[in-house]
């Protein structure tokens, strides 16, 4: 691992942005450090400056109100989100998703901000956040930007964040009544393996609780970024979650992704599993929404 870097420890976001502006390509942001240190160990990043966010106070909040919805500070750890009373109560699918991230050790240290900025399409939280219409707040010297998560993630390990910007907050709007969500994580080897398919299904039902009034599906580990299965969503909207309907939705969704064949499954197999997991995810979300 490169020893030739300087660790800078700003006390505010503004200070951090200023440091990033000064050092531009030579600097990288470090929070929990899990993903960054892995990449540095592989020699993929060789920054001369690491701008550590760990001395910045007040960025690890988890707040909720009916109007603004859920707001999570970028330095909130996966564990704090997993255990948060308000997340468990208002967005249980999010708590379930964060529970599945890595191991306890990873969840104790890894931050939601670090996770989203690392933009590895195989990580767990993005599909669920996408399905919940999450937004991110990004702060730079020129001001603050509010970006939809699906616009934020652009490619493998790439986002729209500029070298002198810091992601400060992730927000999820309030969910309408009769909404339920499920997170399905299908791995073909061990339980802790990178999954072959990640699928988050969030459905809102009609007042009779029979029809999928609104459907949002987030998919992960199947494309250069986590994505929404928009065509499958449109197909399912207004329909009952019956066997044949779900089967066709699955086929539509499987065409919306480009999985890579690897040890976890061939491209064809993964596409087929998208269909299976979509059915199971929608069925589970439907049950949650009915309750």
């Amino acid at each position: 691992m490169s020893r030739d870097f300087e660790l800078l420890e700003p006390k505010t976001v503004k200070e951090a942005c200023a440091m990033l502006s000064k050092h531009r390509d030579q600097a990288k942001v470090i929070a929990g450090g899990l993903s960054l240190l892995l990449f540095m160990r592989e020699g993929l990043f060789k920054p001369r400056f690491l701008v550590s966010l760990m001395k910045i106070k007040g960025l690890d909040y988890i707040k909720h109100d009916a109007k603004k919805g859920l707001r999570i500070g970028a330095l909130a750890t996966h564990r704090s989100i997993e255990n948060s009373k308000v997340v468990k109560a208002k967005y249980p699918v999010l708590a379930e998703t964060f529970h599945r991230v890595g191991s306890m050790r990873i969840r104790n240290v890894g931050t939601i901000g670090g996770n989203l900025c690392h933009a590895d399409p195989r990580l767990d939280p993005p599909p669920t956040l996408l399905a919940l219409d999450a937004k991110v707040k990004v702060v730079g010297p020129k001001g603050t930007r509010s970006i939809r998560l699906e616009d934020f993630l652009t490619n493998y390990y790439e986002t729209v964040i500029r070298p002198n910007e810091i992601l400060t907050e992730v927000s999820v709007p309030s969910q309408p009544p009769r909404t339920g969500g499920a997170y399905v994580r299908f791995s073909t080897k061990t339980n802790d393996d990178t999954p072959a398919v990640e699928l988050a299904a969030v459905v809102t039902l009609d007042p009779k609780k029979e029809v999928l009034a609104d459907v949002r599906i987030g998919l992960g580990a199947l494309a250069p970024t986590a994505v929404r299965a928009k065509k499958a969503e449109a197909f399912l909207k207004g329909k009952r979650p019956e066997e044949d309907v779900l089967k066709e939705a699955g086929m539509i969704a499987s065409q919306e992704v480009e999985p890579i064949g690897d040890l976890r499954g061939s491209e064809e197999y993964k596409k087929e599993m998208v269909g299976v997991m979509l059915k199971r995810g929608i069925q589970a979300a439907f049950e949650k929404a009915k309750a």
Partner: protein
Amino acid sequence: MQEFSVVGKRLPRVEGHDKVTGKALYVADLKLPNMLYGKVLRSPIPHGKVLNVDTSRARKLPGVKAVITGEDTSKVKWGAFINDMHVLAFDKVRFVGDEVAAVAAVDEATAQEAVDLIKVDYEELPAVFDVFEAMEPGAPILHEGNNIALHQKFVKGDFEGGMKEAAYVFEDKFTTPIVWHAYLETMGALASYSLSGKLTIWLSTQTLFMARQRIARALGMRIADVRLIQPNVGGGFGGKSCDEPTAMICGLLAQKTGRPVRLINSREEEFQASRPRVATNIFLKMGFRKDGTIAFKDTKVVNDNGAYSAKAPATTGVTLTRVDTLYRFKNIRGEALLVYTNKVPTGAYRGFGNPPMHFAVEQMMDMAAEATGLDPTEVRLRNATQVGDVSVHGWRVNSCALSDSIKKAAELMNWKEARTNKKPHQGFGMGCFIHVSGKRHFGNYDGSSAVIKINEDGKATIFSGEGEIGQGAFTVLSQIAAEELGVPLKDVEISVGDTDSTTYCHGAYASRLTYIAGNAVKAAAADAKKQLFKMAAEMLEADPEDLTSREAKIFVKGNPSKAVTVSDVARGCLYREGGFPIVGRGAWDPPSELQTKDTRDGNTSGAYSYGTQMCQVEVDPETGKVKVLNFVAAHDSGKVINPMLGEGQIEGALQQGIGYALTEEMAFEDGKVMNPNFADYKILGADDMPEKIKIHFVETCMEPTGPFGAKGLGEPGLVATSPAIANAIYNAVGVRIKGLPMTPEKILNALKEKRANKQ
């Protein structure tokens, strides 16, 4: 059944406190004054001539104390069976990961930086990665002549006659991949060289004396000038039996610099360049008579050697022949080929070639069950080896509880009822196995030796060079000594493995320690006891023949009130004119024979262990994923010296066996390992294991030649695991998978094919 005081008891490990408090030292924890750190440069290409190695920039880096290449070595090739390995490449590199150069520097980071500064000019050569392509004319040749490292063939019994008798014949190809030991502690060494000519190496190893021999040969040194000391070892499973050059490279760096050097493999290096399980292609044809007995077996095995042989020649012979003593095979034909390819060299891993063949044969036994209408247990019972059998290769079975293990497993699993009333997509499967207790193949010796000194306070110290790699040898050998001496376990301790202070033995492999080292330790204890009794007899004014010992007291049988303590006796023997300390010595070489090369005839081991495993699985018909719900293991290892440790060995073996069956395989692209880490090579975690595991030791047949009736236990736990799961999958959803690992995709594709064939 004989009653013992110490043997057969569930006693905690003797080295336990150090391990649970973090005090146990492994080689990466050791430090010597003035120590340097070593790093290795490995080939990035699968096949090429080494034209030039430019170390000039590396040498100039501040903090670098030595840079060595193949030119610094004796260029003597070495190996367990075929001398085809170098220490550092001097003519060719033959796999991605092949050792080319090494650096010793003041810290790891500097050593790594120096390694990155070494410039090697290769003339890249065409490479071959598939065993069948490697055998074709015109294929790139790795060593000399052709790529066939081993070729053996035999025919036994009345093969033609057997073929005529077969009412049912099955013919199939089975394949098994390269899988890793994945022990948690990577390979490492700490070497220190004295100008007197002595090289001391603390090595993470499971075979001290054999490592010493190979290191001495490779470095051109006298055997006894190399001293090997075993620190705590973080798992071995066959992978730390000195088949790769870590210790030699470390030793050379120590010689070159005159300073101690510590060299520890990274996890990635471990995956690239250790000696994992040999991959196999098994062409199997078996014929059964109407009554389910085996009429003939025809086997062809084509094994992947990788770039160097290591233990693969012996592993290949085992794949071909060990199963032949599981059932009463008479008419068999066998052929095995071991083929070089430009991939990681394969070698010894728990089970040593036996698991792949069981994956094949045990599935065919189930096919026979289906064809004959017999229960799978019944087919096995009708063919099972029995005590007193001499098998088709001349292996002599002194003890065998195979049939008992089949019945016991069926009872514990509630087999008949379970299979009759099973839920949809659930299935029950079984597999039987045979394994050895030691194997005679490193020269005409498979023995062990030990020395036991009785300290003046009455505590016994065992000096054994066999070592401990986590399997429980220290505890089991201590229990055996304690039982023989008649003292409690706390009155026995066992030394660290050190080739200077212990006597020759072969180390941990082939499940030999309880059986062979156990007998040597028992003999040493008996010798010490003889001396104790002689002195005690004087002190008690009795006849040595009339004495017995219990709880560290020696007394005339029937008169325990008049006793002397072991301590009294030890002192008494010492503190007198002409006194001497009591030191017992023992050695034992099993009644086994060196096998003939082609036919593998000759009683290869002194004792054979047997057993049956059964499992319950659930297959998800939409994804093909298998969940193992329940496992029963009924093992015949004779008398089990410590059932708690024995269970632990089998539970651990199951983790490896289920991984072999379902999740583990090495992936390659152009010879490069694509998953050299725990994120991409998946071994089972705690919540992947079956929730119900029942282990039973079938102690209905003691091994007459074993210490207190014991025989091998360490390896068998995974030999029958993959066929048990394969057979359970078939019972669940009617598809048979013949290639490991049995991934969800393979199972789903098989299910689809089955549905298509039905229409």
